[in-house]
């Protein structure tokens, strides 16, 4: 047995463990069979431990053999010869993906064990663990993807499970609304991603990162694009990353995502999901290198996010929003680091930040006790001495800045009132035109539904009308 076979077996283990978990949970959910709480916990732990051990083994072997790039191909799954399209499942273990996979397994495993106790007797427990499994699978696929299609596949799984977990408490209005907000932002990001992927296919004739970025192991590849092409594709990918990582102007979804149970907030928004945009930028870093303009844009966006979020974090009076904005601050800095070409620092930053924030979020409910402990140790009320820059800013400007921070940079208002509203208006206009036209054609009121009022009994009255 040669090393390649071992790598392949281990690699399949890494990917298959969460896939099997999703299949098992999904099947049980489909058959309306809820496994016992203990069984669910054991199943999850088994999948995570298998995947984690396999990933560690691969890391060990790679260190032992001194390889930096281990591709595992699982063949073409869809081939459309006329369109020159093939959907190729390919996973790559390299300096970027291996740490990310191990981090995902470690944090997901811990959070899984935590949730096992935390969600005891919760009616939506099965749904939670199914989404959790889906998320884990998405994370692993995204991290290991060797082609842009595979990456998109995992990226979508992560987005779907995250949005559904935000709306976990579906019987209250706020989680459902905020879940939808997150989902909408993700869709915008996905659209940008998809266009970028198609463009890259078009430019290089395939979705494999090897071809796109040149054959060198990450991050030393050389992309075969012109600077203008790189700028175009890179800008689209930057939009995708901005949506996923809560960069300006999408930062507002991050605190809104704190609607789910504490552990899901911790793992998704504190730790893994929010870094996915940065991961994407790291993955396509050879493209970024080609266009200095793009790099400048990335740095600007990152710093802008970091500054805005840091200000917002300073005025938050509830612990989870404060942590969400602190996360956004660090993600902004990480993105700026990527723009500056500091890839290894960015990677280390991601790993450290993810662990730290998960711990902080998991113990967020214990804040009151922590503060009491600190006060007792220090022997006085905790104070926040104002910083030099705060004191040197004139009072009027300080007020203005405070309002900006309290209103979270007005980003949500801009998005809703100046981004979404015009779109809605346009479609409403289309609707009015259509109605006029059909009314004209039918010579009277053409739509029964116009007369129906929105209320719980709507359905019933609709029935009467029909």
């Amino acid at each position, binding site marked *: 047995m040669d090393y390649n076979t071992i790598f392949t077996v281990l690699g399949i283990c890494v990917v298959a463990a969460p896939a099997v978990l999703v299949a098992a949970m999904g099947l049980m959910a489909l058959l309306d069979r809820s496994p016992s709480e203990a069984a669910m916990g054991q199943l999850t732990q088994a999948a995570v431990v298998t995947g984690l051990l396999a990933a560690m083994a691969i890391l060990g072997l790679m260190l032992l053999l001194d390889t930096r790039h281990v591709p595992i191909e699982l063949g073409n799954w869809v081939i459309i010869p006329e369109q020159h399209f093939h959907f190729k499942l390919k996973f790559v273990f390299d300096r970027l993906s291996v740490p990310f996979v191990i981090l995902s397994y470690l944090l997901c495993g*811990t959070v899984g064990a935590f949730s096992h*106790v*935390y*969600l*005891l*007797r*919760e009616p939506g427990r099965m749904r939670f663990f199914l989404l959790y499994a889906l998320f884990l699978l998405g994370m692993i696929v995204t991290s290991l993807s060797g082609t842009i299609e595979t990456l998109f596949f995992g990226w979508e799984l992560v987005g779907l499970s995250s949005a559904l977990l935000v709306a976990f*408490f579906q019987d209250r209005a706020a*989680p459902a609304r*905020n879940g939808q907000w997150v989902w909408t932002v993700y869709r915008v990001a996905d659209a940008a991603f998809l266009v970028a992927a198609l463009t890259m296919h078009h430019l290089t004739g395939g979705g494999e990162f090897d071809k796109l970025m040149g054959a060198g192991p990450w991050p030393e590849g050389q992309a075969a694009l012109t600077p203008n092409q790189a700028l175009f594709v890179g800008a689209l990918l930057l939009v995708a990353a901005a949506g996923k990582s809560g960069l300006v102007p999408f930062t507002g979804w991050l*605190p*809104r995502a*704190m*609607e789910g*149970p504490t552990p899901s907030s911790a793992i998704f928004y504190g730790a893994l999901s929010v870094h996915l945009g940065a991961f994407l930028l790291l993955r396509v870093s050879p493209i970024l290198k080609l266009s200095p303009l793009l790099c400048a844009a990335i740095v600007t966006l990152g710093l802008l996010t970091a500054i805005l979020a840091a200000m917002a974090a300073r*005025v*938050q*009076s*509830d*612990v*989870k*929003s404060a*942590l969400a*904005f*602190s996360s956004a*601050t660090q993600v902004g*800095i990480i993105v700026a680091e990527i723009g500056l070409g500091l890839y290894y620092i960015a990677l*280390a*930053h991601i*790993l*450290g*930040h*993810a*662990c*730290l*924030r998960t711990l902080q979020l*998991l113990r967020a*409910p*214990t*804040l*009151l*006790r*922590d*503060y009491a402990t600190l*006060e*007792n*140790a*220090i022997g006085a*009320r905790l104070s926040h001495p104002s910083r030099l820059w705060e004191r040197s800013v004139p009072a*009027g400007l300080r*007020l*203005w800045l*405070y*309002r900006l921070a*309290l*209103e979270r940079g*007005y980003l949500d208002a801009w998005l809703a*009132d100046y981004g979404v509203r015009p779109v809605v208006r346009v479609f409403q206009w289309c609707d009015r035109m259509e109605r006029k036209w059909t009314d004209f054609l039918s010579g009277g009121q053409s739509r029964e539904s116009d007369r129906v009022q929105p209320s719980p*009994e709507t359905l*019933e009255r609709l029935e009467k009308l029909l």
Partner: protein
Amino acid sequence: MLRDQEDRSEQLDELKHLIEHAAHLLPAQGPITVFVHHNTLHAFEDLPFDQAVVEGSRIFGCEPYLSEERYREMMIHERIRTEDISAVLIDDLGDEADVLLGFLGTRYHLRLAMLQHPLRTAPAAELRWVVAETDALRRFSPDVPASVRERSIEQTRHWVMRDLRNGGRPVADDEFLKNEIHDLIQTFGEAHIEEWSAATWESFTLHVLWRMCYHGVHGVHTSFVPTPPPVRVRDVLLETTGTDSDEPVNELLIRFCGAFLDQGFAHWRLPNRDQGFYRAFLALYREPGGPPDVWREGLHKVLDELVRNQTGPLECIDESLSLLGVATEEREAFLSAILLSLRGFAGMIWQMETRGDRVAHPAPTGSLIEFLAVRLILERFALAHAAREGLGFRGPLEELRTAARRAVTPEPGHYAVSVEQRAFMVFQLAQALAWKPQDLYGMKQAEWATLVQEIEAFSDVERRRIYHQAFERLYMNQALDALTLHQRRDDQAAATPRLRRAGATSNGNPSGNGRASKPKFQLITCIDDREESFRRHLEEIEPACETFGAAGFFGVVMYYRGLTDAHFTPLCPIILRPSHYVEEEPVYIFEETHRRRSQTRRVLGAATHRWHIGSRTLLGGVFTSLFGSLASFPLVTRVLFPRLTAKLRKKFGGLVQSPPVTQLRLERGSDVPPGPHKEAMGYTVDEMAGIVERQLRDIGLTSRFARLVVFVGHGSSSLNNPHESAYNCGACAGSRGGPNARAFARMANDSRVRDLLFKRGLTIPQDVVFIGAYHNTCSDSVTFFDLDRLPASHKTDFDATLEVIDEARKRNAHERCRRFETAPLTLSPEAALRHVEGRSEDLAQTRPEYNHATNAVTLVARRSRSRGLFLDRRTFLTSYDPAGDDEHHTILARILRAAIPVCAGISLEYYFSCVDPAGWGCGTKLPHNVASLLGVMAGAASDLRTGLSNQMVEIHEPLRQLFVIETTPEGMLQIMRENEQIDRLVRNEWVFLATLSPHSSEIHVFRNGRFERRRPGSNTLPEVDSSQDWYRGWRGHLGFARVRAAMSSPSEDA
């Protein structure tokens, strides 16, 4: 001019009065760090309970009782019995029980049937689907017994074959129905009617019944009174357009209120906070160039004008009210509705304003009015925007009220109850009671109307009320029976000493008549229901010990600061404000150690704080994140191995803990008034003697002292639990009561105090030593204080006591574990103790303990009346010896003055949070988010949530508290006369009251305004050897039982 001004100020005063009146509806929960249980519907206490819950549920939009399904489940498990339902029903109906309703029998029978059979209802559309698509018309409901089903089918068959087809009897004059039934027979195949199978007949019967019911209730006039239009335009708009104008307002206000109330979490404090809510808001939002939100376009201009005209908050409210077109007579209702729309924050502002002593940064007086002023300005903008978007309305706001109401005028023919819903209700009853088809067939329209009205008069709230009363009745009867029977058996046992266990004879009668030997030790705990099992186990392990219950502050009302505490904490019930201060100090030889360690602590604390803050800032965050990978170690170990991690932490934490020997600064010179300075701290000897005397007389411990008397305060510690304080001692206002026990023991040990007491006729012998201790009810650990002062002569006594207490901790943990789903039922007591220790250190644990869940009874009596009775941790036990009281019941009155409101508050808070956890309580704990260091929000940005969480109340059974008091009915009535609050709670039935005769097992129950002598309903009380024999292997509810092991100390009134 002057006149105008006077009028104006009078008007504003009235407005202010209205607002303050409305404020009483707001939740009265203060900061979550000092959680005090209180009646959720405190504002309604002057109404009878049943009326108040209905009224409250209307105003707050929450449930008054459990759901009908829950009560039905209880019927299945015999927690509600038919006999109790009928007794309650007869009582409730009074003379109306016998009203005859044609073939339906009496009103009582109809209502009983409606309670016995599950009646389901659904929206009309769903019912139509049920009838058309399910087998509702093919098979009888599975709840209907087979015999009833058979009878029903048989009747129909007879009727069809004999009367309908052969015209034996006159048929109804209703042609339509006649034809319908005829068609029905055709459809089923009249030709083969004699060969119809049983299934066909069943289906046919149901079809006939359904047609008749549907036809019968058709056109019955509705007695339904249309609800008045909502007082807020927002509700009307929500109904017509689906847009909630509160949404943007609340989003902004939640942020702003959070910043305003913040107790020091945000690094950047709200500018101008000292100037109050209104001015801070105006200052922040009056400048242009602010938020671009479309709905509040122009807000800054309005605010700027308010500032320039120097309009005060009250005037501003007045202005907003007229702009919104609120008529003078609507004002009160409107203002209440507005306040309740963000009730958590409004209530917290009111609390911070009225009880500013409980927080670090109180709110200035008038903050609630200022909040309301801002709320109304925003309301104006949000409504105008919503009306513009939804209705295309652009006129002045005051006209919006009428315009919007016009838009919701209900369509004619749109009833609150649909024909389907009515028909289905009758249909289900017809099935369950086997009503004869010919009876229904012959019913006139007026009779149908009566039937429908009768059914609708007994609405679901009414049904739930009866279920609830039946549920309470059973538990109350069982409890009172248990007390009576227990006493009788004690009396029998005393009369025949031969039957007593060998150990019993040697240790005698505790009433102090000289025959008895002294108890091994005496132990006094809080009255808390969680200590009941602890005391029971102690008595089982060492039958020669005695236990007492007293409110857990033990009469020591103080501000206390521990050696490692930053601030003074009030350790006394919330209604008292202490004037004495007590501090813990290191003893002389450890002063240096203490100084060094507190230095280290301060350095470490400051570093941690910097790390805390730093991790959330820009550059500090980079630094901490780069080392953040290190966080994975505590992350993984804390989650996977909580107990081990806690042990390690304790080991290392020991280096910075307070030194091993400390003392309390407890004594002050008699010439210094009490105060927070070093010299003014503590009590004079005289005051100490007063405290000790009062406490000992309260619990009736005035003679027969054991050599060792242990006072045990209690508290609870858990992680990731914002409600941690709610688990602590209620008598210490949500703090831990250890220091009170410690202080009390020190006082009682003081020889000068004993001399004073001796002069007042209370002799504490020389060889009696008091010890203070602290019981952690979550991890079941017990810590003792001041053991360095334990005389050598008492070392063996203490060792023996310690052994008993250690065993009791294990058994107590074991009994608690039966309720924890993650603890296997087969755990050994040792493993159970480890389990509960792990629970209190587990970050992921949402149920560190169950707190007061299942509390149901308060017993104010000598322990001998309940000793050896298994009370399942459901009873508050207050020790009181009527023999030691005077004829004015002075001691009892002062005990009850605290005990009844406090225990009723706990019981009622649990009642409401349990009945509707998402409405009255704070919902599930999982998404809780600590806000402003004051309370919790659900998720990212919600109102502050008050009350208890799902996880705290899930095993609770909502029962009103039953107080059983060892005194005479006359004595109790006298106390009620003198105490208005007790009287109100009892007479309005927020609690139940019974007296237990001091001389016999006779019980009087307070009903309908007077005490009635009670006849025991049952003669059986199970008897077991030990508590374990009774509770082992069982998670759910357990009844009362007599435990022999604890019985060796015979009752004193034998």
